[in-house]
Structures are given as C-alpha cells and as structure tokens.
C-alpha cells in the first residue's frame, strides 16, 4: 500500500468530500494560497477557488461565528483554526452557539460543521502555540471530538467528521504532519465511537490518544522485551467514547494507564480512568494511572519542555510498577 503523510491525508479527505458535496466550504486564516503555515491545504484553492477556500482576516471569533450561521442555513463549513491554542478565542461561538443550537431549538436547527485544529508540544513554540486543549471542548455536550493518531486515522476520521450532522472538533498532532503511514487509494471512513486496538496484550492496557499512541506503542515494544504484554488502545474519538472496548480490555488485563497530551488535571486521562474505576473496579489489580502533560504552561526551553509530556520510557516505567505491584495508595 502507498504511504502518505498525515498532512496529505487530511488534504485528500477534504478534497474528496468537497468534490462530492458543493455545500462544503473551508474558511480560516491563510488557508487559500498559503495553504496554512503547515501547508496542509496546499493545492485546494487551485481546485476549488477562493469562493470555497476562503481566506479571512485574523478574526477567529468572527469566522467561527460565520461558520455557525452558514452551517445552520444549508452549508457544511470546515473551519481551520491555525493553532489549537486559539480555541480560547472562539469559545463562545463554539460552545455557546454551535454546541447548543440543536438542543436549544428542540432539534429544529442543526450545525454540521468541522473545526479542524491541532495539538502537541515539543515544537519549541512556548506556552501559546503548544497546548493540547481537547478536554475543554470534550466537556461541552453537543460537540464531538476526534483525535487522529496517524495519516490513516486522519483521513478516515476527517471524512466522517465532514459528513456528521453535529459540530465536530478534530485535533491533528502538529508534530505528525510529515509522518507517513499506509493509506489506501480507495475511499474509506472511520466511524466515530469505535476504538482501535493497535496491539493485543494480557498484562496491562495502555489507552492512548493522538500523539500519545506512538508513545504507548514504543512503551509496549520495550515492555514486550521484558516479558510484559501490553494492550494498546486508541479511542480515536473521545466524544463519543468507545467505553466497551476499553472496559473489555481492562477486564482482561486488570491494569490500565491512560495517556494523553492534555494537562493531567481535570483532563481526558482522569475521565477515562474514572470510567474504568467505576465500571471495572472488581477486575482491577492496581490503581488506574493517569499520564498527561505536566500542569505547567508549556515552557520554551527544550531542557524544560521535554519534561512536560509523557514519554515512552515514562510509560514503560509506570507499567512495570503496576505489573510488579509496586504501586501503593501513595502512588
């Protein structure tokens, strides 16, 4: 099978859907000729023109609001938010307007839009261009949240997102744009709410999202050489969440670590760990561990920044402690 970059996969997904459905347009800053700073959208304006690939002023709340209104009136906009950190600028339009319109109207209006943005630290971009803020939007009922972990996932999830009739926020890992993976030429979709079991195991379950899937996979490789068999699960979407696949795995392995690049406190890791504890408590042999980003603004200096995100060695170390029963109440 051919291999393409995550960037190319996203580009293909959008182009295929735009060819199929003329009501789709894409709007954001420097999305047309510039093709975004990451060049993910290069070539789209040549095919679809500036009426469908729309460059805006630097007005995030403004173009987010436009997309909500357009989605309510027959269009299917894709909003390009250059950095995930800019979510804070669009929160009213996304969380008070887009997320609630279908419910507040008793199901009469709907907002079929996709907000594509990114996450991920260690790009030496400091505290306002490095955050992983998906927990913020996952907290708001009415929004769906997808976290692709490879080029294959990025294409399949983007195509499903564009066809969904509810607002979907999709976070791409900005450090993975140039990572290649096998992606079929044929059209395919990845349904929401169906986790992917990347590796089967019997001693411990590693639930990992987005950028942390590679970290969990690498940890599992290391653990395998030590005789510890780790199962790696990528939920793909955190809203909706495929609880069953995660719980079935934990009932089998009796141990779990949840790894995600959002801040550890009040985040995705805590949510998934709590569900495991609530619903698989009597199958557990050890406390469920959370491994998120450190609760500090992301620092600039490489010497500091690298300390803030989970690493494969850190995950492997934590897994060893769990499997060897070294984790007590004080863990």
């Amino acid at each position, binding site marked *: 099978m051919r291999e393409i970059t995550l960037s190319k996969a996203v580009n293909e997904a959008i182009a295929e859907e735009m060819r199929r459905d003329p009501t789709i347009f894409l709007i954001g800053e420097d999305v047309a000729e510039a093709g975004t700073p990451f060049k993910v959208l290069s070539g789209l304006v040549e095919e679809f023109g500036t009426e469908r690939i729309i460059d805006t002023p630097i007005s995030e709340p403004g173009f987010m609001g436009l997309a909500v209104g357009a989605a309510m009136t027959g269009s299917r906009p894709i909003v390009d938010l250059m950095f995930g950190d800019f979510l804070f600028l669009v929160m009213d339009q996304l969380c008070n307007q887009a997320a609630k319109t279908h419910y*507040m109207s008793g199901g009469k209006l709907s907002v079929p839009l996709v907000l594509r943005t990114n996450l991920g630290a260690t790009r030496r971009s400091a505290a306002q261009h490095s955050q992983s803020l998906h927990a913020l939007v996952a907290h708001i009922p009415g929004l769906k949240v997808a976290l692709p972990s490879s080029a294959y996932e990025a294409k399949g999830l983007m195509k499903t997102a564009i066809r969904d009739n*509810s607002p979907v926020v999709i976070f791409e890992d900005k450090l993975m744009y140039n990572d290649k993976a096998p992606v079929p030429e044929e059209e395919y979709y990845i349904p929401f709410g169906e986790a992917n079991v990347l590796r089967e195991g019997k001693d411990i379950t590693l639930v990992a999202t987005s950028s942390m899937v590679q970290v969990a996979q690498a940890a599992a490789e290391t653990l395998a050489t030590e005789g510890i068999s780790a199962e790696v699960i990528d939920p793909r979407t955190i809203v909706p969440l495929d609880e069953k696949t995660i719980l079935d795995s934990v009932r089998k392995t009796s141990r779990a670590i949840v790894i995600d690049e959002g801040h550890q406190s009040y985040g995705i890791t805590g949510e998934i760990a709590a569900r495991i504890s609530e619903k698989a408590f009597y199958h557990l042999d050890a406390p469920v561990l959370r491994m998120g980003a450190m609760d500090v603004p992301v620092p600039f200096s490489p010497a500091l920044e690298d300390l803030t995100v989970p690493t494969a060695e850190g995950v492997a170390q934590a897994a060893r402690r769990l499997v060897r029963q070294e984790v007590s109440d004080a863990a």
Partner: protein
Amino acid sequence: MAKATKRKTNTEDYLRMYRQMVRIRSFEDNANQLYLSAKMPGLTHMYSGEEAVAVGICEALTDDDKITSTHRGHGHCVAKGAEFKQMFCELLGKVEGYCRGKGGSMHIADQSHGNLGANAIVGGSMGIATGAALSARRLGRDDVTVCFFGDGATAQGLWYEVMNMAALWKLPVIYACENNGYSEYTKTDEIAAGSLTARAEAFGIESFEVDGQDVLAVNELAQRLVARARKGEGPFFIELKTYRYHGHHVGDINRDYYRSKDEETIWKEQRDPIINFGKWLVGEGVASDAELEEIREAVKKDAADAVEYALAADYPDVGEVDMHVYAPNDAA
C-alpha cells in the same frame, strides 16, 4: 447618511402591521402577568415599546429571509410569523413550544419562518447572521439576513470582526441596532463613545438612522435596504431609536436609580408606536377607531386563549432530556 422617508403601501399592509404590533404588545402583557403570578419559570425580557422596529423590518422580509434575534426576542419572533400557542408553550417550558420547551424565553424562535434563534449572549448572533448571509450567497439563494441586536451589543468585539468580513465580501446582511437607550441597567451614553453609525461607516458600510417608533418609516427603509441587499449591494447598518417600557427584565421593577418615571411616561404617552400609528390610520381614513378596537380585542382574545392552552399543555416527557444533544446522521 441617507434619510428615511415615508411611502404609502396598501390598506391590507397597514392593518397587518398594526395588528402585528398589537400582537407583540399583547404577548408581552401576558408574559409579564405570567411572571408576576409566578406561573412562568425563570425570567423574561419585555419587548414592549419597541414593536415598530420588529414589525417594520420583518414586514419587509419573506419567509426565506432570515433573522437572528436577542434575549429580548419575543417581538422578533411574533413579527417573523410565529403563532401565540407555540410561543406561550415555549415560554412555559411545554413540549408543544417551538423548541419543545428546551429553549424558553431567551431562545424562542419559529425556525420554519427563517428565525435562526434568539440568543442569550449579548451580540452572540452577529456571526451567525453574517454566516447565514455568506451561506445564501454561496449557495446561490437570494435571501437576506437581518441581525437584530441592542445598543449594548455594539460594545462586543465580534460585531467589528463580522462587519469587516461582511463589507469585504459584500454580504446580504442588515445589522439592525435597536437603540433603546439602555445597556441593561446603564445609560447607553455611558457605554458608547462616538456615534454608532460612524462605527459601521468606518468599514464602508452604508448606515442609516431611523425613528424606531414610526413603523412606516422603519418599513420604508427596510424595504429599500432589503431590495438592495438582495441585489448584492449590502451590507447595511440601521440604528433604530426606540424605547424599552419595562426594565431590563421583568424582575427589574425599581429602576429609579438609572432612569426616571417621567422619562418613561413621556415615551409611553407621546411616542407609543401603536397609539401613534393608530391615530395615523384613522387620520388617513385607512381604518376607524372601532375597527382598530376590534383588532385589539381579537388579539387580546387570541392571546388569552393561547395562554390558557399553554398552561394546560404537557411538559416534555422526561425521556426528552437527553434528546437533541446531537443531530441524527443519515443511516450508513
């Protein structure tokens, strides 16, 4: 700045405008009573006094044209074609309400007549209205969107962002600022520097001021601008000078600290849009006092019947609480 001038339309249009204004006033009088008698959950914001704005503008629109409304949205809802029964049901949280009781007063909208919703975030619908206009243009439709908001909302940054894009892309949107002189509990003079029309003009948007108590003046201007917006000559901005008879909301009763009773009396007695339009209709021989009285009585009865119906109507089944969080997708 262009000046609005009066132009005669036909008798049927005049009487419909009169009736629609009376319907808004009647709806609000009943809503206020429901609040005061503790029969309505929550609070509501009265549109009384501003009827000529909603009616003058919405009478210039078709069902395909869109509006976005505000927390003070009952007037827009009535004027854009809603029925009392579903409106009172919504106000009381009943399942037959326009939003199945999930929106209430601050989100009330008859979506089938192009009302994209009342919004409880001040200025929150400015992007939605502008996006609806972008959508219409992109999809080759000729509908126009009117974005209603108050003077208070002109302090929100979102307005400047979307006006900029609307002007750059010549979108068919009309920003209609209902300047009732008060931003919640604060005089507008204390929150707005310079002139509002100058702000829109700074983006190259043609701007107009009109007496928001004069339904004919409002309607004449709206017809002209809607026709022009339909032809791609938009966007436009209108500042409509009007007055809010009640407080910020129904519970804002003792308001001497921010505005005087004398001021309220002057507006109610000398500048009431319904009384003055009624006088004009009689003066021009369009209708007699008795005919207008008949309209008022008929509306009053409609409202009373709708209130009675809504009070007896069913609440949503508890199973509805988690319905409509996500829109259904087509079967795969």
